[in-house]
C-alpha cells in the first residue's frame, strides 16, 4: 500500500512538474510584431530622447508608433545601437482590477497615464520585448569564434535525458535484485 502510494505521488509530481503549464484567465491581445507591422506608422520620430516604459535610460534613434484598431499602441524603437525594443501598450479601460493584477504578474508594467508618453490620458499596461534592427551604428560583424562552434541544438539535452534514464533504470533493477 505504502509503495503504491509512493509510486503514485512520485509519478504524479514528476509528470506535473515537467508537463504542466500555467493557465492564465486573462490573455493580452495580439499586437503584431515590429518586424512586420500590419498598420501604417502614425508617427516616426527621430532624435535622441526616446524613453521606454519601465526603464530610465533614454535612447537615440528612430521611434515608430502604430495605433492599433482597439486603441492599443505598438511602439517600435530602433536605437542607433541596433538593440531594438518593442513596447506593447495595452489600454486598461476594458480590464478589471483583477485582470490588471494578473497581467502585471505576467510582466506588464502599469502606467498610470499615457499622456506623459504622448498617448491618451488613460492608464495603460506596457510590456517590452527585444529584437534587432539596423541602427545607425550597427556593424554587421560576426564573431568567428562563435561560428566555429558547431550548433548542436537540443541533442545534448535529449540524449543526456535518455542516458540518465537508462542508467537509473538499470541501477534501480540491479539494486532491487541484490536487495532481496
Amino acid at each position: 500500500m505504502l509503495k503504491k502510494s509512493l509510486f503514485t505521488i512520485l509519478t504524479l509530481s514528476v509528470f506535473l512538474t515537467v508537463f504542466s503549464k500555467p493557465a492564465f484567465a486573462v490573455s493580452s491581445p495580439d499586437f503584431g510584431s515590429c518586424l512586420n507591422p500590419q498598420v501604417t506608422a502614425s508617427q516616426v520620430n527621430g532624435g535622441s530622447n526616446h524613453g521606454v516604459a519601465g526603464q530610465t535610460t533614454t535612447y537615440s534613434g528612430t521611434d515608430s508608433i502604430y495605433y492599433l484598431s482597439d486603441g492599443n499602441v505598438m511602439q517600435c524603437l530602433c536605437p542607433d545601437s541596433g538593440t531594438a525594443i518593442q513596447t506593447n501598450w495595452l489600454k486598461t479601460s476594458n480590464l478589471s482590477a483583477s485582470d490588471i493584477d494578473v497581467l502585471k504578474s505576467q510582466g506588464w508594467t502599469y502606467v498610470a497615464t499615457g499622456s506623459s508618453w504622448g498617448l491618451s490620458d488613460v492608464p495603460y499596461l506596457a510590456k517590452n520585448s527585444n529584437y534587432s534592427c539596423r541602427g545607425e551604428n550597427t556593424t554587421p560583424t560576426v564573431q568567428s569564434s562563435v561560428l566555429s562552434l558547431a550548433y548542436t541544438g537540443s541533442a545534448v539535452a535529449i540524449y543526456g535525458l535518455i542516458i540518465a534514464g537508462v542508467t537509473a533504470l538499470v541501477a534501480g533493477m540491479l539494486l532491487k535484485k541484490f536487495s532481496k
Partner: protein
Amino acid sequence: MKTFSYILIIFGLLWCLLGGYYWWLTNNPNRLEFTNYSAPKTKTVTTTKGASLPERISILDLKISLPVYPAQIRDNKWDTITDGASYLSSSPIPGTVGNSIMYAHDWASLFGNLVYAKPGQKVDVSYADGSHKTFVIEYTSKVNPSESSILAPSKDKRMTLYTCTGFMDSQRFVVVALLHDTPTFAAITKP
C-alpha cells in the same frame, strides 16, 4: 534499499519517456510550423511573370549556402526537407513585392548559424534563370510559434527567413531581409 530501487526505476522510466518525447518533438516534421498561419490560396509560382524560382540562398557572413526547394502547407502540415532551405511557394518569389518565406531546420548543415545573423549582413538569392539578388538583413528576433504576423504580406520586397531555436526548439528565430531597389545582375547570355 528496496524503496530506493523503486525510486530509481520510476525516475529512469520517466527520464526515458521524457527523452523519447523530446526526441520525437525534435524530429517531428511539423516542428517548423507557425500556428494560426493560413497560406494564401493562390500560388505565385506559376502566376508571377518575369520572376523565376529561387535556387540557392547564401549568407556568406554566416557560412550558409543552401539549395532552395519549393515547399507547401498541406492540411496544415509544413513541408520540410533535410538537404536545403524550404521556400513557401504560396508566398511571393523573393525580390517581388511582398513577404517571401524561407525556412530550414536549425541543424549545423542548414540554418544552424542563422541565429548569429545581424542587421546589415547580406543575403544572396540565386534564381533558376541565372540572375541573383542581394537582400540586406533589417531585423532579427526570437518569437513564439504563435506570432504568425511576421509571415503576413508586406508592401515592401522582403524575405522572412526562420528556423527553430530555444529550449527544445520551442521558439523561432526570425530574420527579415529587405531588397532595396538597386540594380541586379543577370547572367551573361550570348547574343
